[in-house]
């Protein structure tokens, strides 16, 4: 006999609201139905009622973790419409912010995963490590969540102390290599808890169009930083970790290895960042953008963020479309939990690294 278990919209596994209805037979999940929209703010509509300067602040509120990603992508889209060339130093600073954001996002996720696995000391280690990145982001931008670093034409703050960033990178890498990565890749408890559950096959990943580490853990070797380079990623050396098992463990391994790649990128950025201006003047805030449509996308911590902006010659965009990575990834959850043990469902859903604030916008 089957029975239905409603999980959420408010629940202990994640701080954000969403609802998962599971139909179980015994301890086995047979069906899953996902309900989102509890964070719906209609940011796309709100963006069509503000000037371009104001929209930067608005889209930074799409997500509380990868906030910088949204303001960068929006600015890149508008810069394309304006035909603006962003100064090189600003591009390097944008990359540095993006990789610091990836570090704190992946470490946050590692902590949550450790907690759900039952490895609570690792949870504490991860959050202590994340705090170092947050402190660095605060030192650079003055803010811990919404950094306010981007403007159309560049960035609003310089990075005055690259040595401090390198110090944080060294400290994080040491902890990653010394404890986090060995635990996530070789520890038998973690392996037993995560291997073989929540599997998304390569075919499923492709048909659902999933993105980011979730896709790379299912053997889909896509990363926009390499495949469609933007900013100065084409000048940087890094690897794109890919796993083929498609299970929770593969997602752990991909994100753990990506942390090291972000450290590698940050070192190159700090070494190669040229002197020079950090923005070009655009006449903001009453900036008028010529009619047209442009798109831009970047590789956020959870995968591809896509923006399309249509301008009509005024200072207010006619249309702002935002496709976030979790919006693309979340429907796959309904496949990943089917056949799993009920007790594994929280870990499986967390392994997608969902962001409902992003999804609902």
């Amino acid at each position: 006999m089957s029975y239905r278990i409603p999980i959420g919209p408010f629940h202990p596994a994640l701080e954000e609201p969403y609802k998962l209805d599971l139909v179980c037979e015994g301890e086995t999940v047979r069906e899953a139905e996902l309900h989102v929209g509890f964070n719906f703010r209609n940011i796309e509509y709100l963006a069509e009622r503000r000037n371009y300067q104001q929209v930067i602040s608005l889209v930074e509120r799409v997500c509380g973790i990868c906030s910088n990603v949204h303001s960068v992508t929006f600015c890149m889209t508008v810069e394309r419409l304006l035909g603006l060339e962003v100064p090189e130093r600003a591009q390097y600073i944008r990359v540095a912010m993006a990789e610091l954001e990836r570090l704190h996002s992946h470490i946050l996720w590692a902590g949550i995963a450790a907690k759900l696995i039952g490895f609570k000391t690792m949870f504490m280690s991860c959050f202590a490590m994340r705090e170092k990145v947050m402190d660095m982001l605060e030192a650079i931008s003055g803010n811990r969540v919404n950094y306010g670093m981007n403007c159309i034409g560049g960035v609003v703050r310089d990075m005055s102390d690259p040595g401090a960033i390198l110090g944080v990178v060294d400290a994080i890498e040491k902890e990653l290599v010394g404890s986090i990565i060995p635990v996530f890749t070789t520890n038998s408890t973690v392996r037993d808890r995560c291997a073989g559950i929540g599997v998304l096959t390569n075919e499923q990943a492709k048909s659902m169009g999933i993105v980011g580490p979730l896709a790379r853990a299912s053997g889909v070797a896509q990363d926009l930083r390499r495949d469609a380079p933007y900013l100065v990623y084409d000048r940087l050396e890094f690897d794109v970790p890919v796993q083929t098992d498609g299970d929770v463990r593969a997602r752990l391994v991909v994100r753990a290895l990506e942390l090291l790649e972000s450290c590698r990128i940050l070192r190159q950025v700090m070494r190669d960042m040229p002197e020079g201006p950090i923005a070009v003047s655009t006449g903001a805030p009453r900036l008028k953008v010529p009619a047209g449509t442009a798109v831009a996308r970047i590789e956020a911590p959870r995968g591809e963020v896509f923006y399309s902006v249509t301008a009509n010659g005024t200072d207010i965009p006619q249309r702002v479309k935002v496709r976030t990575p979790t919006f693309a990834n979340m429907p796959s959850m309904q496949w990943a939990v089917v056949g799993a043990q009920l007790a594994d469902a929280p870990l499986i859903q967390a392994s997608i690294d969902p962001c409902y604030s992003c999804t609902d916008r």
Partner: protein
Amino acid sequence: MSEGVVMPVRELRFDTSLLELRAEDGWEEKNGSWWVAPETLDPRAMTRFMLAQDARFVTVTAIEREGGETGLAYHWDLKGAILTFSTQTHENKFPSISDLCPAADWLERETYEYFSVEFTGRTSNKQLMLRPGLEAGLNRRQIGKP
């Protein structure tokens, strides 16, 4: 691409020559994407063709147009390039592709809720973002006005 800047082509033939992205076939590279705007677009032929090329469906962007219609731009990723097929609804209806491409399911549901576009051929239009009592077409100006 501003609305209508791309030279419209009568129809697209979905064979591999399309992927040569030639100007005479209506393709234009601008502002981060390759764009094509056929007078009529068979979205199901487009979907079958693009999936056969191992392309990834990224999203569909809807924009309100006059007369109650909606412009639709289908964005695909093909080997790192964005290919965009621009078209428009007829009586604010358009054929669904979600049975061919599961990635389109949530996007069609969202587009229905924001712009009341009816994607024909869908078996269900379950609520996605809107709460009960909110009318579909939330982002159309005549409905969304404060």
